[in-house]
Each structure stands twice: as structure tokens, then as C-alpha cells.
């Protein structure tokens, strides 16, 4: 079974803090994704990566950056957290053969106060 693990289930951070959300997958997948999920807006793609050190902007990259130094790990960085970044963050991975067959982690519910 594919396992995608996010480092935290719940996080509470202060406005202005630098926040790191970590995601690790164990299936040697080439592609990794970060989404955020908000009521009424559904899932929106923030960033994705199709290879180590490669990254592509998704639909809502503003206020975020990412890092992929190793194939199994994809980090989402909030440079200076703001209250409008309070959300559920979901990491996913997929193989090169089935790029859009995504497997998701358990989610991180981030609250910025």
C-alpha cells in the first residue's frame, strides 16, 4: 500500500511565523503535490514537483514556497504565516506512469492566530 505521511495532524502558529509542513511518501513516486482545502472552495493546488529539486506553481502559490531535496520528501513553507492561511493542507504523491492517480496523506489542519 502507498503510504503518504504528513508530519503533523494539527498545528497552531502565530501570525508572522515561518511554518514548515513536511510530507514523506514511501512508494518511490516521482510526483508530489500540496493542496489546501477550504469550505466552499474545495481542494486547490498550491505547488507540485515532478522530480527532485523541481517545482511548479499550482493555482494558488502566493504566500507559499516548497522544497524537494530528496525524492521521498516534499516540504511546504509558509514564509510569514497569516490568518488567511488557516486551512487544511493535504499532501499527495503519484507515479510517473499514472501522474493523476494521486494518493493522499492524512492532512494537516493549520490554524494561524
Amino acid at each position, binding site marked *: 500500500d502507498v503510504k503518504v505521511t504528513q508530519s503533523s*495532524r494539527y498545528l497552531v502558529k502565530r501570525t508572522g511565523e515561518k511554518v514548515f509542513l513536511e510530507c514523506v511518501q514511501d512508494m518511490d513516486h516521482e510526483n508530489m503535490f500540496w493542496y489546501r482545502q477550504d469550505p466552499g472552495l*474545495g*481542494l486547490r*493546488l498550491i505547488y*507540485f514537483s515532478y522530480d527532485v529539486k523541481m517545482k511548479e506553481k*499550482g493555482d494558488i502559490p502566493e504566500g507559499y514556497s516548497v522544497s524537494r531535496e530528496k525524492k521521498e520528501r516534499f516540504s511546504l513553507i509558509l514564509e510569514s504565516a497569516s490568518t488567511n492561511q488557516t486551512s*487544511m493542507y*493535504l499532501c*499527495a504523491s503519484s507515479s510517473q506512469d*499514472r*501522474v*493523476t*492517480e*494521486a*494518493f*493522499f*496523506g*492524512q*492532512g494537516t*489542519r493549520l490554524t494561524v492566530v
Partner: protein
Amino acid sequence: GIQVEQSPPDLILQEGANSTLRCNFSDSVNNLQWFHQNPWGQLINLFYIPSGTKQNGRLSATTVATERYSLLYISSSQTTDSGVYFCAVDFFFGNEKLTFGTGTRLTIIP
């Protein structure tokens, strides 16, 4: 624009009942997935089904790509089936990105 619409938005059923959830999409697709988001927020893969019919236990799914819809069937519902069901589509001209529907919230009452 490209759209993925799910119906009904909410469904409340007694344990043991059967249900059908629908996903309509606006254009040709390479791929369609069904997910169940459990009450803790995790998205669980149910089916990878760009066309045809698949079954897994009490769940089955059918995608009719030519008519641009997919159906998810849940038989003999259990309380653990509660949660939100999403379909997600990789449109033919969508640059290999998933577009998610708005979801169907299913509540199974004991």
C-alpha cells in the same frame, strides 16, 4: 470553463440503505478518481476509473466517458461510510492536473 459537478450535495440515509452518487464533468477526460474523505480529513482512494465499471466489496463505480459522467454505488451502507465523497478528474487538455468536484456529504444513521 471546465467543471466537475457532484450530486446530491448532501445525503442522509439509514444504515443498510443503498446510495448512488453522481459526478458530471464538462469535457473529455484522461482519468477519473473517486475518494472518500473520512471525518478526520484523510482522502482515501476508492477507484481509479477513466472508463468502464469496477467493484470493490460493497462499492462499485461506473464511468461513461462518452456521456461525461461517473456514478459511485454504495450498497448496504454502514456508519463508517459517512464522510464526504469526491470525484476528481484529469481533463484531456488539463495538463495532468486533477480538478476536484465539490463533494457529496453522506451521513449514515444507525
